[in-house]
Each structure stands twice: as C-alpha cells, then as structure tokens.
C-alpha cells in the first residue's frame, strides 16, 4: 500500500500526519488504482468482520450466512481486477461490477452486485471521479438496486444504500473532498443500520440489526479506513451500545487461568482512544468488551486472579470510575452447574409389557418428585404453559410400553390429553388429575405390574384422598364466591376454587390452611415454587410447623412457575 505512485498527487503534507507506514488519501479525485485499493479494503474489512455479520442473520433459510455470501461476492469482484493496473476508473468499476455479478452469492450478494452495477454505469469511461461523481455514482447504485425488485423491503441493505447516497449528496453541498464525503457516508450508513429494526419487524423481534445492511456498512467503513491510513485486517474493536454487551454469555466462556470477571463503569476525562485502550486491556486479560451509553463507558474483561485489580487501577487513570464489580467466575460456574444438575432426575425404566406412566408437570422439582414415584416420562407443562398434543404423543411413542397411564395434573391439559389418546395406537388411560397434589396422590397408587384398567381405577380413586391448595397472585380485580380481590393481591385456591385472599404469602397460606381444615389432616405438604428461595420456604415451613404441631409437615422443592406455593392436605 505504501507503493502508491506519488504522481497521483499525494500531498507530502498530508502524509506527514502519520509517521505510520500507511498514507492517507485525502485527494480531490479518485482514479482506477485507488478504487481497486478501496474495493480490496472493503473486502478485507468485511472478511475481518464476517462473523459479526453472520451472527445477525435472522432469516432461517438455507441461503447461507449473509456475511459469507457478501464476502464471496466481493472476492469474485476483486478477483476480476486483481491483475490489472488500470488507471481508468470507469473500466475498473465495470470489471468489479462484472465480477460481482458473476460471483453473486445469496440475496445480499445479488443486491451488492446490483449496487456495483449501478455505481459502475454512472462512471462509464470516466478516467477519474471527483466528489460530485461519487454522489451520482452512489445515487445510480441506489436506483439500480431498487429497480431490481417490485416491492422493496425497507430496513434492509437497500435502505442503507439509500441513506448512504443521501449523505453523499448532503456532503457535496458542503464542498467536501472524497475523504470527507466518505466519512459522512460511513456515519450515515452506521446510523441507517441502527435504524433497520425500526423499519423491519422481523429484526425488531429478533433484537438485531439487518445483516446485509451491516455488511454494506463494513465495506464502506473498510474503504474509509484505508483512506485514513488505518488497518483493515483486525476485526472491529468498535464500541457497541451498552445494552449489547453480553456479559452473561461471556460468563459461559471461562478460559482456564482467567478466573475473575471485572466490570467497570466509568466516565473518561478525555475522549477514549479505543485502539490503545483495547491493546492495554489485552495485556491484562481476555473476553474484552466495551460498551458505551450516554458518555458512560462499561468495560468487561476476564483476568487471572492476581491481576484482578489491574483493570480498575488502569481505568482510574483515564477518568472517573462510577462502579466496579469483580466476580469469581469459577465459583459462579460451579454454582450454575450445581443449579443445572438438580434437573437430573432418573425416570423409571419400563420393560415391555409393563405399564408406563406419563406425567405432565410444571417445574423441575415436581418432575423429580414424580420421577421418584415411578413416572416413565415427564412432559413439561401446567397452568400457563399447556403442552401440545405433539409433545404428549411423542412421550407416548418414545416409551417401549404400549400400555400407558397419563396424568395431566391440570384441568386445562385434559383436552389435549384426550386428543393425544385418540391419536396414538397405544392403549392409554387418563387418570383425570386436576392438580399436582392430586397427581402425586394418584402416582402413589401406581403399579407397573398391574393391569391397565385396574391400576387406572385405583389411581383415580386415590385422587379424592387429597385436597389441593394453590397460592398465586391475582392478575386482575375480581369478585368471586363473596371474596373481593384486587389485582396484585395474593389469593389461595382450594381444589381449584378461589377460597381466600391476603396481603402476604404467609397470611394467605394460614387462611388457606384454616379454610381447608388442616387441623383434621395428617399430612401437609408444601411445594415451593421458583419465585421463592430455599430460605424463604424454610421460614414459612417453620411457622406452619409451630402452628400445626400435630400434623406432619413436608417441604418439597417444586420449582413450579407462577405459584409460590402448592400444598397438599391429606
């Protein structure tokens, strides 16, 4: 790149800007040789950021990844001009367009080739291009690209191309040099990319920006970088919006030796020189991410134990630190592993000819309880997440037995259960359990060796041995059974009927127990939900134990959503 012929008029004054080996190209005119350099820079920069673009692809068609497709298209374009030293920009542009056309891969590649086609057409036979030629070339690129489709979809690469042309037009009004113009264009393309989710619903839904648009941005930015004399080989170390810093995901990638995660929020005193900032941080650790909010930066890094205070000290020198968090990753990973392992329950093995039971259960804890009682398959589901017929059918089909007892454990699941029963060739009996405690009572009567009808009958009878209490939060104001309930209050249901309400969980639980005549029961089982912690559940248990000293109290981790407590009274 340093071999750029001086005859093209690079002002020596411009070159002194950097003692770096790379020249800046702040020229009045661009010729074929510079265009070749720019196209190659666009390709290099796009390749360096290829994975970033690929990661944005939300359209799950076998079209392949947008980043890869655009890189392949640009490669074909650059191959076409690889061996030439043509000075005439029109000819070079035509060769690029021809190469892009022949090598266009994927939808984004086709659009990219159309952009080049329009661009080249406006430069027909011109030896060089000045600022106003760039404007018309970018406009022609946009027009040609839009011509290629009946219903252009906005929020895509087309929008970005259009905004880029618009920015060039505005820069032209200020009598900009090509470099200044490109700066404006890149900035506009960046804004345009950020705007794509506002224009296109699928992007908003997936929480990403458009991949093709981002690819075009990288091509343009690559061109700008080479004109400024910056490198185009290292992947982008640009600052992402604060919300995009994926600290949780980074947590999963703990490299050995990088035990501590340090997150620092800070306000730099001077504008941050990102390249130095990154390279300094790289000396300390890995998984570096920097996010920017309103003049606040957030830095995230993984460092070895002995270097855990280094990033903080370093950043203190750059500005004022507002928040520091240091966490031991190994400890956290161990914790989260422990949390996951509680999901491992062992389902009952079924021999052919035996009865198998399929149970619908909300929450890991309840699944484990059912598994310990001999359930052969668990279908996750319950009050607000009814399982599909498909899921239940699949559970039937995966079992080696052709005689199955199904416990739906929720009234809302009964219909689905019935459908699944009708659709399978296996013999299925449904024990109509309406709640989890009923299901557990029924499961106690299950016997894998018995005859299907007899076992199902025994289980159905067992249903009535138990009363079910459920405590949850009212989702709306309601007046029912003489009770007035406000949205947000705790409510207690006894056997599916609204029975009591209260302000706190404890209060509601006590009222519900009274209502259910817990005094005359032998056993009170409390299944605590995912909204509670173990210690909260323990406190509740102790209070109930002191209130009902003659009853046996069991506390079981149910892990069900939405219901802080499910209780069974026997």
């Amino acid at each position, binding site marked *: 790149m340093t071999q750029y012929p001086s005859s093209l008029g690079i002002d020596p004054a411009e070159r002194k800007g950097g003692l770096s080996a790379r020249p800046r190209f702040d020229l009045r005119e661009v010729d074929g040789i510079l265009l070749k350099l720019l196209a190659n820079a666009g390709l290099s920069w796009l390749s360096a950021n290829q994975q970033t673009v690929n990661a944005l692809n939300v359209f799950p068609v076998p079209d392949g990844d947008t980043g890869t497709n655009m890189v392949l298209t640009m490669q074909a374009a650059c191959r076409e001009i690889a061996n030439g030293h043509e000075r005439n920009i029109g000819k070079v542009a035509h060769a690029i367009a021809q190469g892009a056309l022949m090598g266009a891969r994927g939808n984004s590649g086709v659009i990219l080739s159309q952009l080049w086609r329009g661009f080249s057409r406006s430069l027909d036979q011109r030896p060089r291009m000045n600022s106003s030629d760039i404007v018309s070339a970018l406009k022609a690129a946009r027009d040609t690209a839009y011509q*290629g489709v009946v219903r252009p979809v906005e929020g895509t690469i087309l929008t970005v191309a259009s905004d880029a042309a618009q920015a060039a037009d505005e820069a032209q009004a200020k009598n900009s040099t090509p470099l200044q113009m490109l700066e404006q264009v890149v900035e506009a393309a960046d804004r345009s990319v950020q705007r794509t989710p506002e224009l296109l619903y699928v992007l908003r839904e997936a929480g990403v920006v458009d991949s093709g648009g981002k690819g075009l941005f990288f091509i343009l930015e690559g061109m700008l970088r080479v004109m400024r004399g910056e490198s185009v080989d290292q992947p982008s170390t640009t600052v992402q919006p604060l919300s995009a810093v994926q600290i949780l995901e980074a947590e999963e990638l703990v490299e050995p030796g990088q035990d501590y995660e340090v997150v620092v929020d800070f306000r730099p005193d001077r504008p941050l020189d990102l390249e130095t900032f990154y390279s300094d941080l790289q000396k300390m650790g890995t998984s570096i991410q920097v996010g920017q909010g309103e003049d606040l930066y957030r830095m995230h890094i993984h460092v070895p134990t002995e270097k855990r205070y280094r990033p903080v000290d370093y950043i203190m020198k750059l500005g004022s630190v507002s928040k520091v968090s240091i966490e031991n990753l190994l400890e956290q990973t161990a914790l989260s592993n422990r949390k996951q392992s509680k999901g491992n329950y062992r389902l009952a093995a079924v021999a052919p000819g035996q009865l198998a039971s399929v149970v619908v259960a909300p929450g890991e804890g309840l699944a484990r309880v059912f598994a310990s009682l001999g359930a052969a398959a668990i279908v996750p589901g319950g009050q607000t997440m009814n399982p599909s017929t498909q899921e239940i059918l699949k559970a039937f089909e995966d079992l080696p037995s052709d005689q199955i007892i199904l416990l739906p454990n929720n009234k809302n699941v009964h219909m689905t259960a019935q459908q699944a029963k009708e659709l399978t060739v296996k013999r299925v009996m449904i024990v109509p359990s309406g709640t989890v405690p009923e299901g557990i009572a029924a499961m106690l009567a299950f016997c894998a060796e018995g005859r299907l009808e007899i076992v199902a009958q025994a289980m159905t009878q067992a249903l009535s041995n138990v009363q079910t209490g459920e405590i949850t939060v009212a989702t709306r104001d309601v007046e029912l059974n003489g009770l007035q309930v406000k949205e947000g209050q705790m409510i207690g249901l006894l056997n599916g009927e609204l029975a009591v309400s209260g302000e706190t969980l404890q209060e509601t639980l006590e009222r519900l127990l009274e209502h259910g005549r817990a005094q005359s029961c032998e056993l009170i089982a409390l299944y605590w939900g995912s909204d509670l912690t173990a210690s909260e559940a323990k406190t509740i248990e102790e209070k109930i134990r002191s209130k009902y000293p003659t009853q046996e109290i069991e506390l079981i981790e149910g892990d069900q959503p939405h219901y802080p407590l499910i209780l069974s009274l026997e």
Partner: protein
Amino acid sequence: MTTGGNAPLGSICISRRAIASLASQAALQSYGVVGMAARGYFEGFIRAPARDPRQGVEIRYEGDEICIDLFVVLEYGTRIATVARSIADTVHYQIEHTLGLPVREVNVHVQGLRVSNTD
C-alpha cells in the same frame, strides 16, 4: 382446498388461491423479481387486468404436501441462478412459516428478463 390439521374446534381450510397470494407476495418481495408472468395468452387475458394473485403461480398437492410453480420475470443484469434459488428459498420459508403446511417443492420458471438499462 386443504385441511390444516385437526384443530380442537373444527378443521381449517386454506384455499389454493390463498396459498397463491402468499407465494406471489413472497416472490414479489424477493430481490430480483420484477413481475409475475402469465403462462399463456389465455391466462394473461383473464387474470392480468384483475390483478389476480394467481397470476404466475400454480399450486398443486402431492399427498399432504404443497408443490408450487412460480412463473417470474427477473431484472436483467442479476445473476439469474442465484436470484431463482433465493426466490425458491424465500417462498418455501414463508409458506411453511405462515401456514405450517409442508412444502415439497418450489419450482421457479424464469419466463423473461426486463432490461431497464443496457450496460
């Protein structure tokens, strides 16, 4: 007409015309397509003036699966093979995604090219 599975409260019927509209919309939004083509003088005569969504779209069933034939006009100067491939992908995806019915094949017939500008 086809039934879209057994819903609990009855069956769902989706007409070929409806499927054709979806396919045609998806095709017209894919890059490189500048129009749907009539397959003959007769069809052009009766459908084009009414902007019938079935223009250039043919829907068949093979068992429970849908086969779609699309007759399109593409922009001159695009890479035809890539554009056609991408139309097939888009239509295939859109139909399966919106209807939940399996699509066996999407055949793209390029009936013509529109030359907007000559290079």
